[in-house]
């Protein structure tokens, strides 16, 4: 049962061939069995989950209408607020924070009767590409326990890949859903900026952050998107765009669809194995009748510096509220107020977070604002325009998700610049606010390779359409041996 899809579980539940309680218990068993090795979970809400499953079963037994995700065990990244539960962002400075409210996505999941089974590990405050920056523990890649699951939503990706839950939520600021999805061989979707409410997502970089799902197949992805998308009055950046039923986009003929391959995304730094598997998928697309052509996105090469300036600037401000007075960690000894701030933050934040706070503080300071922050905003606009032009030529853009397969612990941890390159294919999408998915298309050296499909604004449906066609042809059915 562990590796069934959510939509299969849904069918079984409706046909009453299995109860929600059984499904949830089996998930909890699986977590008990494998999570000691993977370390995806920070906390499992065993009792609550079983209670909630029972009430779903009761509803089904009484013939009451249940939500679209009824009875399906899932888990959330630990930067999404869950009422009366801890939300720590895997940081010492938030270790004691219990949220008094639900994030909008959590409210929607609860309304759809999904069973939230626990909180998932992540890079501290979602900063990182390997989940090595968690202040609590390192999550391992289910395909190879000596390798990283990717980051920052490594826990979310690993938990789905290992069959612990049927889907999970993560957040994507520069690739934090797609890159770990790629490294763990699951589907990870970053919707258009504003498609999913950020209310209740502890902000890293407000203008780039987006919540999205991890699933095992494209159909599940569409199902979850159906639940979490939509305008939210509590988030003024949330888009007022109708949410269609995304499942209607699946299994469609993609003949004549125009697919662009940006040559800059296939160049230097991409592993041969990754390139090979992605190109195989592209060949499959051609067989299905897609019109594939090479395009050029030269501005993309500026995405990484723009990303680090904008995201660090926003982070330096967003994280200012963690001052040692409220929430979690507070230094024991201090001289005065400023000293309390300094000591609490020095100890409470990990080194990657501090690195970015300093970078952001520098970029926003009065002497450097124009040279860095303002200039980054200008380049951001150029990147957006470049994508807009590209989408006049093609319907979708396809590329590798990550330049390499999962790497070993410590391999890049000491070299931040090398680590930052893990997100080179995903970051431009966040800069432009576009939707994109990563889906597994093959293995290289026994490790999953992800393909990224980027769509125009609010074209999630089109992306899903292409993804479901590719899924059928490549028939990725690898499972981790764990």
């Amino acid at each position, binding site marked *: 049962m562990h590796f069934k899809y959510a939509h299969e579980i849904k069918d079984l539940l409706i046909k009453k061939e299995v109860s929600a309680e059984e499904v949830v218990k089996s998930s909890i068993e699986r977590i008990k069995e494998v999570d000691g090795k993977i370390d995806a979970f920070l906390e499992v809400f065993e009792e609550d989950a079983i209670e909630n499953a029972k009430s779903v079963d009761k509803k089904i037994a009484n013939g009451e209408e249940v939500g679209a995700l009824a009875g399906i065990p899932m888990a959330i990244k630990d930067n999404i607020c869950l009422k009366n539960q801890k939300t720590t962002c895997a940081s010492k400075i938030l270790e004691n924070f219990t949220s008094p409210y639900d994030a909008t996505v959590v409210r929607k999941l609860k309304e759809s009767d999904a069973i939230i089974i626990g909180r998932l590990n992540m890079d501290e405050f979602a900063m990182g590409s390997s989940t090595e920056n968690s202040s609590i523990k390192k999550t391992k890649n289910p395909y190879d326990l000596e390798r990283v699951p990717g980051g920052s939503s490594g826990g979310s990706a690993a938990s789905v890949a290992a069959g612990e839950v049927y889907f999970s939520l993560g957040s994507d600021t520069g690739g934090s859903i797609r890159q770990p999805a790629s490294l763990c061989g699951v589907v990870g979707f970053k919707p258009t900026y504003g498609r999913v409410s950020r209310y209740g997502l502890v902000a890293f970089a*407000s203008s780039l952050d987006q919540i999205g799902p991890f699933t095992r197949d494209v159909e599940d992805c569409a199902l979850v998107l159906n639940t979490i998308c939509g305008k939210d009055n*509590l988030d003024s950046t949330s888009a007022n765009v109708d949410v269609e039923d995304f499942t209607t986009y699946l299994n469609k003929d993609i003949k004549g669809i125009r697919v662009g391959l940006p040559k800059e995304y296939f160049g230097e730094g991409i592993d041969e194995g990754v390139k090979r598997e992605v190109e195989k998928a592209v060949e499959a697309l051609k067989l299905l009748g897609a019109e594939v052509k090479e395009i050029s996105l030269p501005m993309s090469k500026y995405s990484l510096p723009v990303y680090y300036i904008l995201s660090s600037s926003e982070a330096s*401000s967003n994280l*200012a509220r963690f001052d040692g007075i409220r929430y979690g960690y507070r230094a024991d000894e201090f001289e005065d107020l400023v000293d309390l701030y300094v000591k609490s933050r020095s100890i409470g934040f990990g080194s990657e977070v501090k690195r970015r706070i300093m970078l952001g503080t520098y970029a926003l300071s009065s002497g450097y604002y124009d040279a860095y922050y303002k200039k980054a905003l200008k380049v951001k606009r150029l990147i957006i325009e470049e994508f807009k032009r590209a989408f006049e030529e093609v319907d979708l853009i396809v590329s590798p998700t990550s330049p390499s397969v999962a790497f070993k612990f410590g391999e890049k941890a000491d070299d931040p610049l090398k680590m930052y390159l893990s997100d080179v294919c995903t970051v431009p999408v966040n800069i432009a606010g576009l939707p994109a998915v990563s889906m597994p298309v093959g293995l290289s050296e026994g490790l999953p390779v992800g393909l990224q499909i980027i769509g125009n604004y609010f074209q999630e449906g089109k992306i899903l359409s292409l993804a479901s066609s590719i899924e059928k042809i490549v028939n990725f059915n690898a499972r981790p041996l764990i």
Partner: protein
Amino acid sequence: MEFEAVIGLEIHAELSTKSKIFCGCTTEFGGEVNTHCCPVCLGLPGALPVLNKAVVDYAIKAGIALNCNINKETYMARKNYFYPDAPKNYQITQHETPLCSEGFVEVETEEGLKKIRIERIHIEEDAGKALHEGDASFIDFNRSGVPLIEIVTRPDMRSPQEARMFFEKLRSILLYTEVSDCKMQEGSLRCDANVSIRPKGSKEFGVKTEIKNMNSFKALEKALEFEIERQINAVRNGERIVQETRRWDESKGQTIVMRSKEEAHDYRYFPEPDMVYLVVDDNWIEDIKSNMPELPDQKRKRYIENYNLPEYDAEIITASKELAAFFEEAVANGGNPKSISNWIMGEVLRTLNDREMEITDVKFKPADLVKLIELVEKGTISNTIAKKVFADMFETGKQPEKIVEEKGLVQISDEGAIRDIVNKVLDENPQSIEDFKNGKTKAMGFLVGQIMKASKGKANPQLVNKLLDEEIRKR
């Protein structure tokens, strides 16, 4: 060398909205600590601000009333600084793009009407309030997220009196438009001042100091007087003025250094990424314009033109919306505008000032004042009696006719009755008759006084004068 002051003001006004700027919490003053709070105004992790449209309405209203341009596309910005009562450690405000800019206020100064220019009006959120108890400090976040506008003037004021007049006028405009309740004691209107001095006639600006948080008109005037004097003395003693922030210490009557420029913050302003651009279209502005009340300046002009009031009267009556409303209701009740104005400028304001009361506190109705004036004009009572009746009205709220009737204050206009009193007084004061005949006109005044006294003030003064003249000549 003679010096002149250069003064600019920054005024924070709390808006009269029912809910806070970025959430639905109430803005009501008071309340048990931390009861008017939610994740948003507590700045909890994950909470997001959503701009309250009413805040923009009020800010636009203020902008129109202060003759500003309304900027159609603006954005909110973050001002970053660590402070215990700021829940997010940044304040959401406006920086490069204020909602309103380039306005002015006209102030009636000794040298005539003067325009004080408004540089900008922007919207922002208030912080919480620190409470100290022994060694411990606590924060009450009830105020956190209360909407404010900050009104920044150009350095156009040249004296503490001018600054005060401007501040009073501004307050009156904010009250007229109901943009703010302007309760200074509750902190809903606060004033900071930038002040420098320069040799009179010079065009250059001197080094300025900033004085923080003056929360009364008197404090503003006194603080500026002190600070200007301090700066002049410093310059005369060959000292340099340093750019610094000072605060007004009411008890010491001094401005005191808070921090120097070296300690100044780098606020690292940048556009608030949790919010979209604020776009205001013409319809929105027109809608607010069409619902604007008549403002003090318009009223003043109308009073001068339509009611022939002196400029001084018109200025004073229109300075308070409530006083103007009282005046207009009296006029609507058929009173002569000039007589009503005389009464307001005289007895009404004097009594209010004596008792430290507002016009809204009076018990009698504007129509009662009109009745009182009519009683005088018809000759039913004398002016002197009228003042007594007014005092009674003020105290009890009774109608003037009732008071006159109950106390038997009707004026005596019966020639025979007055002639009797005149003769009685003359009989009692032979010396005064003698003095009068010897050319001492003062004696006449004394006799009139005695007659009025004998009639308990009720004798018609014209008749008294006429009959006294007749009778004294007979003797």
